C-alpha cells in the first residue's frame, strides 16, 4: 500500500466530522453510528496498511544502511513568513508516527464501536446528541492523527490546540451538567496555560534555528547531526545561565506536560472524567494525554543534547508517577482511580524518555539513550491498549450499575464474567505480569531507569509495585469483596455485543501486544535496537508486582476490617491522598487568593480607573464641550443672522482699522 494513502487516514475523520456534524441531525442514530464505525474501520485499515508498509515494506527506499528513514508524504507550503521561515502542512511517516497511527485508529475504532452501545441511552432515556458525539469523536481522532503526522512544530501546535478544543467539546458533552462544564473549562484553561509556554518555546526555538521543520534539508531533528547544528545555531546564547535552546525545550515540555497531565498541571485530568466514559478511554489511552509524550519524543534528539531540560523532565516524571499512584490507592470513584493510574503511567513514559541518556555520552547509542526512547514508545503502545480496555470495562460497569462509586459495585464477578475477565487482563497487563503487554514495555522502562542510576530504578520499581497494588485494589473492590447488593430492578450483566466486542478485542491485544518487536521498529533514529530481557530487572519487577497484587488480595479480596484499620491508622495521609494532596485547593488558593487579589484586582483597578478613566475623561470633556457650545446650533435663523452680522461687522471693523490707520 503506498504511503500516500495516509492522506486518506487524515481526511476521512475530518470528512466524517463535517458530514456527521452537518447532516447527522437528519439521520437516525443507528445510521449515524454504523456510518461512523464504518468510516473509522476504513481509516483503521488504511492506517494499518500504511504502518505495515512502512515497517515491513521494501519499496520506496525507506531503509538506508539499516536505518529506517522518515518519509515525507507531502508537505506543501502553507504560510510563508520569510524566505527561510515557512510554515508547511504535511504528512511525515516515521517510526513513531506510523506507530501512533496504529494506536490512535485502533483505540478510536474500539471507542466508536463501544459508543454505539454505551451512548444509546443515558440513565434510561435516549441519549441526546448521539450524532454530535460521533462528529466530535471524529474531530478528536482527526486532531490527534494530524498531530502525529505533523511535519513541523507549527503544525503540531495547531493540532495540539485542536486536540484541546475537541477534548473540551467531549468532556463537556453533557453540557447541561455544571460539573461537566467546569471540568471542560478546567481542562481547556489548564492546557491553554501550558500551550502558552509551548508557543513561547516554539518561538524561541524557531528564532534560533530558523526553521519549524523536523525533517528534510533544514529539519531540526533529522538525525543527530541536524540536532547538533540546531543547538549550535543558538551560538551559545544563554539566558539566566542556561542555553536558550534548553529554555525553549523546557517551555515546550511544559506545553507537553499540560496535555500529558504532569504534576503540577495534572489537575484537569481527574475532572475530565465528567465526560462520557468512551471519551475518557479515548483521552487517556490514545489521544490527548500521549500528545505531550509524543511531542517530547518528536524533539528527542534536541532534548538529548540539552541535559538540563532532560533532568527537569526526569524529576517531574518520576515524582508525578509516584504522586498519582499514591492518590490512586485511595480513590473510591473507579474512573478517578483509573485517571490517576493514567497520570502515573504517562509519567512512566516521560521518565523513560528523559532517562534516555544515562551516561550523557552520545556514543553509546545502543542500550544507552536509545533504550529509554524505545521503552517509552513501547509503553505508550501497550498502555494505550490496556488503558482503553480498562476504561471501556469501567464504562460497562458504570452502565450496568449506574454509579461511579466502588461501594455500589462489589461482587460483580458473578454477574459480569466477560467484563470481569477483561478487566483482570487489563490489570495484569498494567501491573506488569508476564506475558501480558505491560510487562514487556515496563520492563524496558525499568532497565532504562536502572541505567540512569540505581536510585531512579528503585524509585520506579516501587511505583510499579504500587501500580499493581492499586489496580488490583480496584479490581477486587469491583468484582469481589462481598456479595453484590442489587439496587435496581435490573440485575447488572454483561452489556450488549457492541460494548463487549471491543473489550474482547482489546483484551486479546493486551495479551499479545508485548510480543510486537518494537525494538526493531520504533527507535529514535530508525536503526534496530538489539535488546534482550534483563532477567535481574524483570525478575525483581515481577516479584514486586506480585507483592503488590498479594497485598491487594489480602486486603480487598474478601470483606475484612483491614482496609478501614489501615485507613484509621494513617488517617491523615489517607485523607490527604483522598483529596489528591489538596492540589486543587492549592490552585484555587493561588488563583483566587494570590493571583486574583494581588495581580488581577490591581490590574482591573488600573484598567477601570486609569485606562478607562482616561478614555472617559476624553469622552466627557468632548461631551461637555459639545454641550456647552450646543446652544450655538440653536436652529434659530435669527440667532444665525445675529452671529453672522456681528462677524461681518467685526471683519468690517478690522478692515477699517487697517485701511484708515
Amino acid at each position, binding site marked *: 500500500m503506498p504511503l500516500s494513502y495516509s492522506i486518506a487516514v487524515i481526511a476521512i475523520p475530518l470528512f466524517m466530522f463535517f458530514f456527521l456534524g452537518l447532516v447527522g441531525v437528519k439521520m437516525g442514530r443507528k445510521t449515524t453510528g454504523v456510518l461512523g464505525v464504518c468510516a473509522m474501520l476504513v481509516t483503521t485499515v488504511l492506517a494499518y496498511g500504511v504502518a505495515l508498509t512502512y515497517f515491513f515494506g521494501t519499496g520506496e527506499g525507506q531503509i538506508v544502511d539499516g536505518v529506517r528513514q522518515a518519509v515525507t508524504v507531502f508537505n506543501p507550503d502553507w504560510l510563508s513568513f520569510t524566505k527561510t521561515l515557512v510554515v508547511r502542512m504535511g504528512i511525515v511517516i516515521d517510526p513513531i508516527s506510523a506507530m501512533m497511527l496504529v494506536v490512535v485508529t485502533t483505540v478510536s475504532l474500539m471507542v466508536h464501536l463501544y459508543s454505539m452501545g454505551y451512548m444509546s441511552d443515558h440513565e434510561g432515556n435516549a441519549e441526546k446528541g448521539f450524532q454530535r458525539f460521533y462528529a466530535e469523536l471524529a474531530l478528536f481522532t482527526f486532531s490527534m492523527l494530524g498531530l502525529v503526522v505533523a511535519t513541523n512544530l507549527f503544525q503540531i501546535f495547531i493540532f495540539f490546540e485542536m486536540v484541546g478544543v475537541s477534548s473540551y467539546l467531549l468532556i463537556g458533552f453533557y453540557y447541561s451538567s455544571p460539573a461537566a462544564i467546569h471540568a471542560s473549562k478546567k481542562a481547556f484553561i489548564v492546557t491553554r496555560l501550558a500551550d502558552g509556554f509551548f508557543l513561547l518555546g516554539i518561538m524561541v526555538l524557531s528564532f534560533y534555528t530558523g526553521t519549524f521543520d523536523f525533517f528534510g534539508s533544514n529539519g531540526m531533528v533529522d538525525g543527530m547531526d541536524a540536532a547538533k547544528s540546531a543547538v549550535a545555531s543558538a551560538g551559545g546564547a544563554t539566558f539566566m545561565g542556561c542555553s536558550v535552546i534548553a529554555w525553549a525545550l523546557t517551555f515546550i515540555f511544559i506545553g507537553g506536560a499540560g496535555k500529558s497531565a504532569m504534576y503540577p498541571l495534572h489537575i484537569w485530568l481527574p475532572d475530565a472524567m465528567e465526560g462520557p466514559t468512551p471519551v475518557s478511554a479515548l483521552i487517556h489511552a490514545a489521544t490527548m494525554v500521549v500528545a505531550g509524550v509524543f511531542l517530547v519524543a518528536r524533539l528527542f534528539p534536541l532534548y538529548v543534547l540539552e541535559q538540563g531540560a532532560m533532568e527537569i523532565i526526569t524529576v517531574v516524571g518520576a515524582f508525578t508517577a509516584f504522586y498519582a499512584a499514591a492518590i490512586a490507592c485511595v480513590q473510591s470513584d473507579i474512573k478517578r482511580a483509573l485517571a490517576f493510574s493514567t497520570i502515573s503511567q504517562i509519567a512512566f513514559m516521560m521518565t523513560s524518555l528523559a532517562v534516555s541518556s544515562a551516561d550523557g555520552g552520545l556514543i553509546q547509542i545502543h542500550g544507552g539513550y536509545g533504550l529509554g526512547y524505545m521503552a517509552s514508545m513501547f509503553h505508550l503502545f501497550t498502555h494505550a491498549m490496556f488503558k482503553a480496555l480498562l476504561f471501556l470495562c469501567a464504562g460497562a460497569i458504570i452502565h450496568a450499575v449506574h454509579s461511579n462509586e466502588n461501594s455500589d459495585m462489589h461482587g460483580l464477578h458473578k454477574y459480569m464474567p466477560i467484563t470481569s475477565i477483561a478487566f483482570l487482563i487489563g490489570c495484569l497487563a498494567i501491573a506488569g505480569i508476564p506475558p501480558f503487554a505491560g510487562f514487556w514495555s515496563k520492563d524496558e522502562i525499568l532497565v532504562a531507569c536502572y541505567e540512569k542510576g540505581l536510585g531512579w530504578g528503585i524509585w520506579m520499581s516501587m511505583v510499579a509495585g504500587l501500580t499493581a497494588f492499586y489496580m488490583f485494589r480496584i479490581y477486587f473492590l469491583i468484582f469481589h469483596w462481598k456479595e453484590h447488593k442489587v439496587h435496581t430492578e435490573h440485575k447488572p450483566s454483561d452489556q450488549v455485543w457492541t460494548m463487549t466486542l471491543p473489550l474482547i478485542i482489546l483484551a486479546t491485544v493486551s495479551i499479545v501486544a508485548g510480543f510486537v518487536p518494537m525494538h526493531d521498529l520504533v527507535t529514535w533514529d530508525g536503526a534496530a535496537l538489539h535488546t534482550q530481557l534483563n532477567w535481574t530487572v524483570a525478575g525483581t519487577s515481577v516479584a514486586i508486582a506480585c507483592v503488590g497484587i498479594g497485598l491487594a488480595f489480602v486486603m480487598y479480596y474478601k470483606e475484612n476490617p483491614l482496609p478501614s484499620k489501615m485507613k484509621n491508622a494513617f488517617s491523615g495521609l489517607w485523607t490527604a491522598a483522598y483529596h489528591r494532596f489538596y492540589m486543587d485547593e492549592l490552585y484555587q488558593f493561588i488563583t483566587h487568593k494570590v493571583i486574583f487579589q494581588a495581580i488581577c484586582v490591581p490590574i482591573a483597578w488600573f484598567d477601570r480607573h486609569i485606562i478607562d478613566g482616561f478614555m472617559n475623561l476624553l469622552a466627557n470633556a468632548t461631551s461637555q464641550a459639545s454641550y456647552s457650545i450646543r446652544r450655538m446650533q440653536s*436652529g*434659530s*435663523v*435669527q440667532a444665525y*443672522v445675529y452671529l453672522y*452680522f456681528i462677524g461681518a461687522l467685526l471683519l468690517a471693523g478690522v478692515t477699517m482699522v487697517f485701511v484708515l490707520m
Partner: protein
Amino acid sequence: MNLTLLMYLIPSLIMFGCGVYGFITRKNMIAIMISLELMLNSVDINFVVFNRFLFPGQLEGMFFTLFAIALAAAETALALAIIINVFRIAKKVDINEINKLKF
C-alpha cells in the same frame, strides 16, 4: 445749503439698522419678512444714490435696483406662500415654534 450724498445715506443706514433690529427681534415670520424688505429697500436707495451722485452719466445702479425690486417681489411672494402653507399645517407663524424640521 446743498444736499450731499451723506444726507441720503444716513436715512438709508438707519432704515437698514431698523431692518436688522426687526429681523433679529421679531418672532412673527411675516414681521421678519417686513424687516427684510426694509433692509432690501435701504440697499436699493444706496445703489440709486451712489449712481446718481458719483456716476451721473451711467445707469448701472438704477438697473441694479430695478432687478433687485423684481427679485424682492419674487422672493416675498414665495416666502409668503411658504408661510401661509406652514400656517395651514401648524396654525402658527411663530418662528420659534416651527421646529418640526429641526429634528
